[in-house]
């Protein structure tokens, strides 16, 4: 049985025709199922566990990158096959997974091409992160794979850990490209060189692929993972290999 988790923003008139077209197409493929609407303060993990008990075999996320991150950051602990129907703006993860937007995604879903995805795990609140984790400039010390420690000479450093989205660092001379699903997480570290009038100045970034990383500081620092912000003094970031089973498209980028 297929269960479709609709993001709340899809109630808008703008998406009415797309949703209707998707539902018709799903009926054509005989994969239509129960629709559950995600309210703002609902825990997706509880919904997924409830639906598994009721006999759900596939959980399909309908929405954009935020919906995808919100559902999987908590729902990744559930052992079930996930699907994704991208609708609306800010849909870059779908591109990585090779899923076209709107109605065309139904075909990918019906083909059931399954892949196990690596995702990131962060120790605070025992959560997963799907797209990226960000720590704004702070006095942090980073230890990689319990082997070596990285310290900024100017003390304050910004940290970005990329997971499912390929990113390009736009440098003056060269472009750094980070690719998803290569068996490692990539961490970008930028020491702050000073404060400007409009924005902070940063030095050239350092890039380290890793499987486990510990970030610590004497003072609490902000951690933003898939849109959720918390304050921590020590976190452990790990790669959760092959954690999610996901239906992907033929045109996926890994």
């Amino acid at each position, binding site marked *: 049985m297929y269960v479709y988790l609709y993001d709340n923003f899809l109630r808008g008139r703008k998406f009415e025709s797309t949703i209707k077209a998707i539902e018709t197409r799903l009926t054509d493929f005989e994969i239509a199922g129960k629709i559950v609407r995600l309210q703002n303060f609902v825990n997706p993990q509880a919904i997924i566990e409830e639906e598994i008990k009721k006999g759900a075999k596939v959980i399909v996320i309908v929405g954009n990158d935020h919906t995808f991150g919100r559902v999987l950051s908590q729902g990744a602990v559930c052992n079930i096959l996930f699907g994704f129907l991208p609708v609306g703006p800010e849909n870059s993860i779908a591109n990585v997974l090779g899923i076209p937007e709107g109605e065309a995604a139904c075909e990918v879903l019906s083909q059931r091409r399954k892949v196990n995805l690596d995702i990131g795990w962060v120790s605070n609140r025992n959560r997963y992160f799907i797209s990226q984790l960000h720590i*704004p400039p702070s006095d942090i010390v980073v230890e990689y794979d319990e082997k*070596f420690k*990285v310290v900024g000479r100017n003390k304050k450093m910004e940290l970005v850990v990329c997971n499912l989205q390929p990113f390009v660092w736009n440098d003056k001379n060269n472009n750094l490209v980070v690719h998803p699903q290569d068996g490692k997480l*990539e961490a970008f570290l930028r*020491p702050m060189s000073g404060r400007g009038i409009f924005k902070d100045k940063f*030095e050239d*970034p350092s890039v380290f*692929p890793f499987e486990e990383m510990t970030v610590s500081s004497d003072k609490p620092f902000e951690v933003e993972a898939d849109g959720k912000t918390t304050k921590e003094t020590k976190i452990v970031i790990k790669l959760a290999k092959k954690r999610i089973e996901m239906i992907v498209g033929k045109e996926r980028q890994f």
Partner: protein
Amino acid sequence: MFQKPSPEIALSHKDNHMRPHDDVETIVGPSVHVEGDFSSEGNILVKGIVSGNVRTSKLFTSEKGSKVLASVKAGNSIISGAVKGNVKVDDRLELTASAQVLGDIECGILVVEAGAMIRGKVSMKGVASIEDPNQSKKPSLIRKLKEGEEMPAE
């Protein structure tokens, strides 16, 4: 006007970058200090300071102004900074004009640009197989004399 710092400022997503990428690149930035043994399966580029052994099976590059305060082991290497330790490279080692190596070098192919500084022993693969023709004759001469034969006239 006053933007909250976000990764999007630094890292922008581009849809047109679909090229497969197999080399994992590790970069040690110019104002970063790495302490401890440091190994990678991909290429390593050092612009800052590394206090610990560096190990990679692929390319190790150190830029001008960088410092590595321990031994380096790599598949190939281009050194433009300072290395205080032994350098062992399986294939090709290139020392540019600004390179400084304070330690022994072991490599397959060595390229040294004018101005590069080395203080240490340099040994290369393949040198041991070249034998001195005079030295190779001596053992056979001793053997013949032991058997009681006369010494051949020069």
